């Protein structure tokens, strides 16, 4: 049977149009290539 409290807590608010700008600023765009470049740079140093 369902635990309603638990199920309800799984729901997260949706992004409102007014908050799009901030969400774009906070978006983490690091991909695997970036990570690899960082690792290579650290290795060289």
């Amino acid at each position, binding site marked *: 049977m*369902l635990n*309603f409290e638990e199920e*309800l807590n799984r*729901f997260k608010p949706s992004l409102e149009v007014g908050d799009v700008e901030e969400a*774009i600023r906070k*978006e983490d765009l690091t*991909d*695997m*290539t*970036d990570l690899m470049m960082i690792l290579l740079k650290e290795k060289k140093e």
Partner: protein
Amino acid sequence: MDIRITKNHQIANSYYNLGLEKAKRRDLTGAAEALKRALRFNKFHTDARNLLGLIYDEVGEAGAAMVQWVLSLNLQEQDNVAAEYLREVQGRRSYLEAADQATKKFNQALIYAQNDNEDLAVLLLMRMLSEFPNYIKAQLLLALLYMLHEDFTKAGRCLYQVLKVDMFNPLAQRYMAIVKENTGRAEIEKRKIKNAFSHRQMQDDDIIIPPSYRENTGWQSVLNILVGLAMGVAVIFFLVMPTNREALNVEHNQELQLYMEQLNQRSITIDDLNRRMTEAEQAKQTAEQNLENLLNDNGGVLKQYQTLIQILDAYRQKDLRTAAFLYTQMDVSVLNDETIQDTLTWLAHEMTADGWQVLQQMGDEALARQGGTASAIDYYQRSLQLKSDNPQVIYQIGLIYMSLEDTDTANQYFGDVIMNYPNSEYAAAAQNQRGY
């Protein structure tokens, strides 16, 4: 290009292809997951990002869709279909506003639901979903709330809507399984599957009876027709007639209700008219009573005006006696007319100055006459009406009562003089009368 970067791009492409395939099969949740992975391997994968935005838009998340398209356009400014998507969304101002309102309502409903206001949350979600039925998260939340109230049929409808948009949504599938368990639908489906796939090995003694043609004989045809007729009659009697009867009953009930409403309305109108008639009757009686008082009562306004005219007439003829006597009969409190206030003030001043002396003199004259004691008391009393602080008159009244052998009343007047005018020349005389 570095081989490792190339590998990353290949993996990203694979995930994109997987995402595209899933999106085509309307597995939007799976597609979104694959596309997010593709972007983790290559953030410049414009197609993956644009498709992710489209999926977000499809499931009602307009804000999240815009984020992906704006990022996509920033990462690749030229030849990017995201520009068109954004232009279309922002061009339809009403759509964007409505989508934003829907998001706000969902967020509010979520707050209500998480704070034990499930009823308000349900109302808000129902209203919002009538405009945006594809809003997956809202449908799921509404389904959950219906399940909380054990309304599994309505929950099933919401979940059906979710699965129409996102066919393999895991949460919807999980909820749907619970809904089916509670509505008995799961059992029916199980039985169907069992019947579809089960078979029995044929035994040696099983007989297959071939379908054969049998020609009906004459009496059988008649019998069949009769049975058919009987069934027709039964259908009419048991199915058609009750339905018709019920429809007629409903119609009659509606008519009856209409008549009852009209009747009630009429009753209300009649009651209102009766009430108004009673009020009018009472108002009429009050007016008649007032008129009668005005005409007949000695204390009435009309009477006072008559007295005032008589006083002024007496003044004109220099008959101060009649004027003073009438003035003591007049009730000036009922004469409120602004235009005569000056006249009344002047009259009051005249009476206070001279009227009391005239009345006192009339009292003295009456007292000198044989049998004039009653008149004398009356004149003295009227004199006191105009000038109450006159110990001479008070003492005089006391003497009259003493002569009438009404000692108690006489003593009251003497007492008044002794108490209130102890320094007057009549105080000592009054004390003598009382035997001090």
